[in-house]
């Protein structure tokens, strides 16, 4: 029952049911217009929103307009920090890395989770239910621990890869070396999140009206056509939702490379991703003004990136 109700909410989330709900409630909402209760319900969240979202953003922007030098003190410099950020090879290298990483990671992650969801949706066996839980399991594991476990498994001296390659008399590749780090990190992130995305797609698939399938089968559709012509288009808004999550998550990549840093023999530099760079600027070099500018610039890049993406995929009023 909870399942059905949640699917219903998800459905209305993607079809703009919120707006439809408003239309339905117009009459009684108007009656309640004089009541201040609505804003009172929102007020507690509003306070937290102002203090921990608006204020830090505003303050970061303010700080980012100044520079602080030992000799010069704090000076107003306008957009100098931003000019510096967008010409700083470290920042640009990090941005370029997370963009490349998203472009490769997200399609792979989507393919794995979509394939798993489609297979699970077509099966009702006990093993399928068990698999669904196990594939989802990594979501409950902190990224710190996930990254650590993979760091162990990658270890060239005692990881299982070594044993595997030893069987054929080869030396195993070190997945945290500069050449392999891209794939090594991709594997960790896919492992961590694919199950969660799978559950989102799976729930959307379960919400599709089964009579659609019967109609399609009567018209002679094969299982493959059923998947590609009906199921995938029907869950496209769930896919867009996942893409947005994945994009926001990947552009602010921090935990996994930060944790794998100490065991990666220097492959993961202090400017590996923009977030790691900002963190090190702030806490290793105490350059809070410049770190604020980097944070703010990263936030703007993510915001614009996601906004453009949503705008491009907007055709049926999905998600937002």
């Amino acid at each position, binding site marked *: 029952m909870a399942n059905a109700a949640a699917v219903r909410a998800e459905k209305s989330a993607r079809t703009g049911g919120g707006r439809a709900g408003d239309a339905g409630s117009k009459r009684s909402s108007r009656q309640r217009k004089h009541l201040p209760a609505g804003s009172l319900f*929102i007020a507690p969240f509003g306070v937290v929103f102002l*203090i921990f979202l608006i204020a830090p953003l505003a303050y970061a922007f303010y700080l980012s307009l100044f520079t602080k030098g030992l000799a010069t003190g704090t000076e107003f410099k306008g957009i100098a920090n931003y000019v510096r950020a967008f010409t700083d090879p470290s920042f640009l290298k990090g941005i370029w890395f997370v963009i490349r990483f998203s472009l490769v990671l997200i399609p792979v992650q989507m393919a794995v989770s979509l394939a798993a969801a489609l*297979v699970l949706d*077509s099966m009702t066996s006990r093993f399928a239910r068990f698999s669904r839980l196990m594939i989802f399991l990594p979501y409950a594991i902190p990224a710190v*621990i996930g990254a650590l476990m993979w760091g*162990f498994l990658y270890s060239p001296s005692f990881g299982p890869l070594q044993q595997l390659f030893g069987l054929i008399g080869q030396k195993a590749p070190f997945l945290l070396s500069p050449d392999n780090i891209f794939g090594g990190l991709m594997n960790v992130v896919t*492992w961590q999140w694919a199950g969660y995305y799978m559950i989102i797609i799976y729930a959307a698939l379960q919400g599709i009206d089964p009579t659609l399938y019967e109609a399609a089968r009567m018209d002679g559709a094969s299982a493959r056509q059923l998947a590609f012509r009906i199921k995938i288009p029907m869950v496209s808004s769930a896919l867009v939702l996942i893409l947005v999550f994945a994009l926001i998550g990947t552009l602010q990549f921090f935990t996994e490379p930060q*944790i794998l840093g100490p065991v990666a023999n220097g492959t993961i530099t202090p400017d590996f991703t923009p977030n790691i760079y900002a963190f090190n600027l702030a806490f290793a070099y105490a350059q809070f003004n410049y770190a604020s500018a980097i944070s703010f610039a990263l*936030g703007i890049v*993510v915001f614009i990136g996601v906004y453009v993406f949503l705008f491009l995929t907007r055709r049926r009023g999905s998600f937002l």
Partner: protein
Amino acid sequence: MTTVRRAQPRTQGGGRNVVAHLFLAALVIYFLVPVWFLFVASTKDAHGLFAGSAGALWFDKNFDLFGNLAALTTFNQGIFLRWLGNSALYALSGGVGATVLAVLAGYGFAKFQFRGRNLSFAILLGSVMVPATALVIPTFVLLSQLGLTDTIWAVILPSLLNPFGVYLIRVYAADAIPDELLDAARVDGAGEIRTFFQVVLPLMRPAVVTVLLLSIVGTWNNYFLPLAMLSNTNLFPTTVGIGLWEGLAASNNAGGQSLWSLIIVGSLISIIPLIIAFLSLQKYWQGGLSLGSFK
């Protein structure tokens, strides 16, 4: 659009599709290998961990799980237990607080008309796209002005912010709570608060549990925020504590004690609570998670 369609068993397949089962089996193995490794490794002593005869994915002849657990709970005056308690404190207070705020605000947005509602909801939706970690350093600077960094509040208070939770509750409440029911409650003389607790809250239970679970997981698993905010090791949650040990172990500053064994067994202990939570609340999140989250 609002018709509820119950998931029905599909006619095809029926569990006999060998290829599909093999595919699932391969996925299950892939997703379980690290967890299996963690379990096996936590039963090994320091020697077995690095030079065990049976390899990384099988038990060593020396079964030392209890020795490792004893070492974990006594190392450094049992600091790990303290981290575990801190994680629970942050996750529960941050998670419950964030959920309460999200439920109130989501209901307010869904069912009330007031000035500036559309504008504030548009701002809320925009804020969902602001990356959470981009806020950490600015929040750190702000809280340090107030002298709040390196206290539990520096972790708990920012965790209360969950704009996506508000969005989920709002979407859910708009559909799940009929206006007629609210009007009827008012006609019967129930005040707003009583209506909220007795009529609204029971109807929103699946969404509330989902937002609660997501908020708790998000806070329990959070690393960047506590890493930035805290420098007193007594206040660390397990994620930051294990990260600290890892850094020490990797640079061999462990002072003779093999920290790697502690890291392994500590990791195992700290994933158990959330796995139990997910297994026991299955019937809620299996559907509720389709609402998604940013954490």
